């Protein structure tokens, strides 16, 4: 990954009145990868994405997307030509038909691929003559995805792209993301579908309360996070385990459970030195990593 980051922010912040939505965000999103942006509702994901696209102005801090400054209107216009974006609320003109919407969008973008648009129209089984306002939520999402996937951008930003989709639709979406990534498109997407994120993402960023809590590759998370369950003859020596990498310790009777973001070897060695009668190590999935990270905050 020698390429320059596609998204870079420095102390980016946004407040609405007294309420801080994003607090000093330092984000670096790599080219040639799929990056997932996780966070609870209200964590500041959509606000961040809208600032990146120049749709709302940061209260302070700065950032670039594809090397273009997000607060410069001229550079912003240039950037938007190379970025496809699927918004959270999937804004479309209700009075247009599906076909009109596609034709309308195609006229904006020099990177539009008509063949892909037609293929997706039939794969998504969207009725070309139906008015957008008569579409179901899932169909609206599919139309919004079609408009993004028909382009050949350098960067694809999606805000909750799986909203309203059934499992078949989600699978198709993931496949499309993989295809785009294989074509060299950098992908940055927010999602609540942790199981899906876990399958296709290279990198995961967790945002909570406007702050970046975690920015790591999934390979690293898989190799480092462990839950170590210990049993002791007497009361578990909790204090002995407050070492580097240990995020959380829970004890109950003779049992103790250690949640570690790394350094699991040391915990295990320690447990053996302290004569633990049972040591069990288990990997930790992204769902638990997310829940623990957000809870600790």
């Amino acid at each position, binding site marked *: 990954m020698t390429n320059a980051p596609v998204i870079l922010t420095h102390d980016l912040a946004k407040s609405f009145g007294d309420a801080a939505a994003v607090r000093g965000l330092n984000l670096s999103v790599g080219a040639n990868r799929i990056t997932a942006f996780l966070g609870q509702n209200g964590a500041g994901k959509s606000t961040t994405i809208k600032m990146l696209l120049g749709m709302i102005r940061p209260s302070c801090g700065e950032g670039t997307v594809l090397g273009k400054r997000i607060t410069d209107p001229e550079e912003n216009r240039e950037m938007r030509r190379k970025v496809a974006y699927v918004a959270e609320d999937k804004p479309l003109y209700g009075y247009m038909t599906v076909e009109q919407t596609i034709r309308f969008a195609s006229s904006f973008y020099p990177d539009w691929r008509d063949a892909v648009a037609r293929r997706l129209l039939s794969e998504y089984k969207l009725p070309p003559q139906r008015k957008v306002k008569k579409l179901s939520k899932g169909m609206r999402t599919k139309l919004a995805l079609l408009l993004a996937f028909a382009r050949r951008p350098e960067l694809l930003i999606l805000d909750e792209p799986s909203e309203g989709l059934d499992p078949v639709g989600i699978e198709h979406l993931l496949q499309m993301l*993989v295809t785009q990534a294989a074509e060299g498109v950098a992908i940055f997407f927010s999602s609540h579908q942790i*199981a899906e994120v876990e*399958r296709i993402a290279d990198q995961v960023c967790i945002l909570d309360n406007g702050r970046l809590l975690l920015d790591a590759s999934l*390979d690293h998370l*898989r190799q480092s996070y462990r839950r170590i369950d210990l049993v002791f003859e007497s009361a578990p020596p909790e204090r002995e385990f407050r070492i580097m990498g240990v995020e959380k310790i829970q004890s109950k009777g003779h049992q103790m459970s250690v949640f570690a973001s790394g350094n699991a*070897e040391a915990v295990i060695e320690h447990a053996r030195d302290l004569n633990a009668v049972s040591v069990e190590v288990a990997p930790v999935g992204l769902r638990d990593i997310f829940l623990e990270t957000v809870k600790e905050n």
Partner: protein
Amino acid sequence: MFFKLTPTTGQPLYLQLMQQIRHATETGALQDGDQLPGIRTLAEELVVSPNTVAKAFSELEHGGLLELRQGSGAFVCVKRRTRSLADHVQVARRQLRDLIERLRDDGLSNEEIQRAFEAELLYPVEMVRKR
């Protein structure tokens, strides 16, 4: 070839893919000269990031098990070395079978044996050596 990657096993997906390709050459499911799907095709099939497949391929190429040809994909090259590895695996399986039988005789259930195996496998390599 059928590959199955499990996102929640605590092992990077590219490592899982590497192991499964290696395993397929050991069992003979993949043979010398066989062609694997391209990075993009395999990534779409498995629904994983193309980087996962690319990394597995490039590591296997490094180890001499795959030959990557520009534009035409990845080809398996199984030399005698891997065959002898297949023999090792055969021997290891017999040893494991004996061990499992002994553990069952000691009254351990399959589930307990499996848990013990999984726990031991998760220990880092350096520590196993130290013990």
